């Protein structure tokens, strides 16, 4: 076969071609060096032509694909087309509605991409393409911004470019078919600047960095406040300090004046967040923790300052300051925030583990050259080389070579999947045996792994219904505490012991400081974050806090049979030989498999696979004939063979003898028997069945031990269904249920007043999954099942159901502990601070103790949530 050189059009033999190039999945052959050179200059202009004819007769026309978005294409496509047709030089427009792509053929000399894009935008659509951020080092002059922007915009394929001098980053929208990052970088270098990877593309690292920075800042604030606190404490408790206790009141007052000045920077710097936060909240007519701290410390400072400035207006013995309260409380609360931040960092480790699955670099082949690129620079359409033992960097389709790929981390399938040309590969999976090249289809945030990470993050930030209670409470909490503080003051002042003013002030300040809305607010989100992360670590993707909360109370688990309890794929189970058979069982299987190899029946594949597993050789088949509803007939090795059901055997008047009895017992076991006759005599039975997954029975047993009723639902006949149910220990079977009735059956179970979970393989069970209180999809983490279900079990095993419920129970228990702890803390702390115990036991809290309690109550909540990190499921993940 000859093919055409795409440049000159000459007919050449592929084997004897001068050179060969691959571009975007097409292979081109060339007759000479000059043709190759010409091709290399602009390989893309030779695309869009048939790979077999090779020659492009209309070379002056350029074709471009623009991804468009923003509006439904279906309704507005005519509008879009007419806007483009109005441009001179546009010759052909194709709108692919489902893919959201627009194909335009245009004369590059008359119109350019920028004008096409603006025409598209004028109709209200947005033009997609790739968006990339490029960091620019040492970008200082504002005027260069425009030069770089213009340079980028004039690069072919760039749709828009903006340079931000503040972040030192260029944001470029471009069509990856038309340009590469290297070209964009070159445009920046043109103006003497050095491009680098943008920092804002690694959200997790960035957040970590921000946290580390914030932690250092808080600790500095703490140490400063703590140092001042020591000095202030010494002067506050002068009675116990040797030199100070001998000072006169006037010199003490001078010393206090000095500490008043010292506490000012503590408030202005260490406690600045409280004061500015309180003010912002006040402007919004809301109040929060900052308000309480500000009021407490502010009141203490103002009172103290008045007391030392105008001692005469205060009753005897009440003119002593409380600067110690100000600095110590601020120091403690800041320390609490720092510790909380540190603990929070640990809670997000699950996401880091998931992201750790991703490869860091990819071996990209561009223009025939290999280059190792960081994964962020890989573009859609790149061809990537993967060698044995390497990770597949992003998602794509194999264009050359074949291999076995371990996808267990994303699909749960423990056997490596064999991949050949045209098969999809998924990023973060591990290439086992062979080398292959693949063309990328999804990069960056679109990869399956990135989607999973995004889903887990979203779920971690979602809300459990129980949190709404805490939310409602904390909405009223702070103003209520403020009112309580007011009345504490009033009551102590009106009926308290002398000195009333001191008692009134100290108790009301203590009330303001001890109350901790933070512990309430943190209780649910922290546990949820750890719990959902823990689930993800064990291959369980929980979509929301709501799903997590509902899963705890599940009373009935409904299991779909096919694909959930069973493998969902028929396997050869039995080969039975009749007494008068002329062949042995291996030979019977060999003949049957040879015939079934030709057949397209779904059960046929099971027989072929069974024969292959036994390493049997296939033989030639003649006169193959499929008899619909009955079976097949053919000739093999000179014998006429019939494979089919009882109807076929009856039609051909074949005496079955004891085989009929045996076939019944096979059917009772849930298997599908097929009779085989050789030369008109019954030779035996081959049975196939959808076999039960190895660990289904074990998982069901554990579910039942957890007090959960297990129900099986299937469209299969009752006999088969019950055979499977017996094997796995399920007693309640809903058989012969039409697919559309599955949801209804779930509804009936719910009508019994029970919380029902449905476990299915995602796609066909979607209505039932949606109807159930919790829908669990078994299957891969990469398909639409994620969308349909509340919980996705990445590892195909039913053990995941057990783990999901365990995670849910552990997390919800943790949340209850946190909430109860936080409620009790406030419900006990506030009355004690008000002095409720004083009349009986003479117990009063110092505001400093209150500050410590408040700071550590929220740390305790975070700490308790982190205890969840030690969660171990019954079935270990590995």
């Amino acid at each position, binding site marked *: 076969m000859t093919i055409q050189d795409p440049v000159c059009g000459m007919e050449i033999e592929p084997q004897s071609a001068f050179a060969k190039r691959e571009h975007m999945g097409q292979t081109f052959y060339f007759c000479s060096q000059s043709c190759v050179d010409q091709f290399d200059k602009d390989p893309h202009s030779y695309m869009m032509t048939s790979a077999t004819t090779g020659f492009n007769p209309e070379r002056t026309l350029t074709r471009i694909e623009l991804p468009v978005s923003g509006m439904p294409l279906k309704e507005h496509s005519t509008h879009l087309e007419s806007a483009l047709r109005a441009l001179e030089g546009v010759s052909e427009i194709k709108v692919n509605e489902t893919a959201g792509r627009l194909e335009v053929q245009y004369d590059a000399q008359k119109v350019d991409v920028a004008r096409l894009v603006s025409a598209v935008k004028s109709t209200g659509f947005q033009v997609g393409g790739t968006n990339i951020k490029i960091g620019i080092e040492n970008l200082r002059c504002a005027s260069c911004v425009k030069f770089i922007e213009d340079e980028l915009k004039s690069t072919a394929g760039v749709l828009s470019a903006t340079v931000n001098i503040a972040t030192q980053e260029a944001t470029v929208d471009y069509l990856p078919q038309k340009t590469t990052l290297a070209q964009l970088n070159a445009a920046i270098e043109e103006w003497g600047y050095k491009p680098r990877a943008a920092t804002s593309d690694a959200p997790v690292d960035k957040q970590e960095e*921000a946290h580390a920075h914030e932690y250092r800042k808080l600790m500095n604030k703490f140490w400063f406040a703590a140092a001042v606190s020591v000095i202030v404490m010494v002067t506050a408790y002068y009675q116990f300090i040797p030199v100070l206790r001998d000072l006169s009141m006037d010199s003490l007052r001078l010393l206090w004046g000095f500490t008043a000045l010292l506490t000012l920077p503590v408030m202005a710097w260490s406690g600045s967040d409280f004061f500015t936060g309180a003010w912002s909240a006040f402007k919004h007519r809301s109040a929060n923790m900052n308000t309480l701290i500000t009021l407490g410390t502010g009141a203490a400072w103002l009172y103290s300052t008045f007391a030392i400035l105008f001692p005469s207006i205060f009753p005897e013995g009440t003119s002593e300051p409380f600067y110690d309260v100000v600095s110590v409380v601020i120091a403690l609360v800041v320390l609490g925030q720092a510790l909380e931040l540190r603990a929070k960092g640990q809670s997000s480790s699950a996401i880091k583990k998931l992201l750790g699955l991703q490869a860091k670099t990819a071996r990209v082949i561009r223009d025939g050259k290999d280059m190792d690129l960081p994964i962020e620079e890989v573009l859609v359409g790149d061809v990537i080389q993967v060698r044995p033992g390497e990770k597949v960097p992003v998602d794509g389709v194999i264009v050359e070579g074949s291999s076995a790929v371990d996808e267990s981390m994303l699909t749960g399938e423990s056997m490596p999947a064999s991949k050949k040309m045209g098969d999809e590969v998924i990023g973060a999976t591990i290439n086992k045996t062979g080398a292959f090249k693949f063309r990328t289809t999804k990069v960056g945030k679109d990869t399956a792994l990135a989607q999973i990470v995004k889903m887990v993050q979203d779920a971690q930030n979602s809300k459990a219904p129980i949190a709404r209670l805490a939310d409602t409470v904390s*909405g009223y909490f702070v103003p209520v505490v403020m009112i309580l503080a007011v009345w504490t003051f*009033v009551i102590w002042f009106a009926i308290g012991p002398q000195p009333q003013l001191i008692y009134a002030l100290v108790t009301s300040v203590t009330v303001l400081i001890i109350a901790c809305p933070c512990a309430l607010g943190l209780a649910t989100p922290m546990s949820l974050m750890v719990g959902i992360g823990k689930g993800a670590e064990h291959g369980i993707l929980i979509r929301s806090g709501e799903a997590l909360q509902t899963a705890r109370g599940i009373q009935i688990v409904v299991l779909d049979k096919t694909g959930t309890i069973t493998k969902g794929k028929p396997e050869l189970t039995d080969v039975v030989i009749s007494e008068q058979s002329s062949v042995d069982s291996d030979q019977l299987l060999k003949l049957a498999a040879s015939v079934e190899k030709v057949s397209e029946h779904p059960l046929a594949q099971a027989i072929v696979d069974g024969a292959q597993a036994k390493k049997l050789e296939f033989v030639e088949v003649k006169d193959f004939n499929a008899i619909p509803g009955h079976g097949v007939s053919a000739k093999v090795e000179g014998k006429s063979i019939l494979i089919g059901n009882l109807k076929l055997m009856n039609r051909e008047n074949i005496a079955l003898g004891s085989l009929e009895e045996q076939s019944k017992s096979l059917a009772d076991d849930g298997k599908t028997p097929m009779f085989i006759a050789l030369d008109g005599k019954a030779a035996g039975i081959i049975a196939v069945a959808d076999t039960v997954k190895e660990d289904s029975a074990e998982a069901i047993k554990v579910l039942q031990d957890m007090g959960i009723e297990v129900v099986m639902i299937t469209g299969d006949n009752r006999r088969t269904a019950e055979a499977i149910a017996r094997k796995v220990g399920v007693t309640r079977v809903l058989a012969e249920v039409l697919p559309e009735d599955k949801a209804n059956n779930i509804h009936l179970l719910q009508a019994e007043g029970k919380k029902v979970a449905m476990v299915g393989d995602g796609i066909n069970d979607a209505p039932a999954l949606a109807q159930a209180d919790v829908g669990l999809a078994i299957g891969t983490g990469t398909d639409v099942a994620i969308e349909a279900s509340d919980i996705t079990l990445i590892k195909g095993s039913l053990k995941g159901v057990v783990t999901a419920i365990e995670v849910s129970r552990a997390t919800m228990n943790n949340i209850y502990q946190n909430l109860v702890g936080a409620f009790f803390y406030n419900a006990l702390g506030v009355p004690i601070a008000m002095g409720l115990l004083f009349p009986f036991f003479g117990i009063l809290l110092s505001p400093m103790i209150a500050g410590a309690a408040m700071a550590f109550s929220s740390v305790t909540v975070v700490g308790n949530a982190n205890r969840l990190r030690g969660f171990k499921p019954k079935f270990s993940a590995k």
Partner: protein
Amino acid sequence: MSIPQIFVILSGILLTILIAWYFWFAPKAQTRAAVSESGAQEVAITVKGGYTPDVIVVKAGRPVRLTFTRQESSACSEKVLFPDFNQNANLPEGEQVTLEFTPDKAGEYGFQCQMGMLRGKLIVE
């Protein structure tokens, strides 16, 4: 009962009324979303000790585009959540972060930071 005590009691009553009125009963200022060329309802929100504006009025059935800019480093406000729309975003300090979704049903929906210290309200008409 002495005069200062009577004065303190009366002040207490007054303060209680003032606190309740200011935080609960006084009407809040509302910000209506501007409709951009593309038809989305756009609002820019500054995050600093609170959300400014914090009560946002939008129309149902039209996309809402909220651009948050966090101008503080306190870790408390690093996330913004719209639990009713299952939307959330990290807000790196100083960066503009846009959230886009379409509210279908009229009603009042809260938004907040992760632990609920900062709160705002989205009123869908």
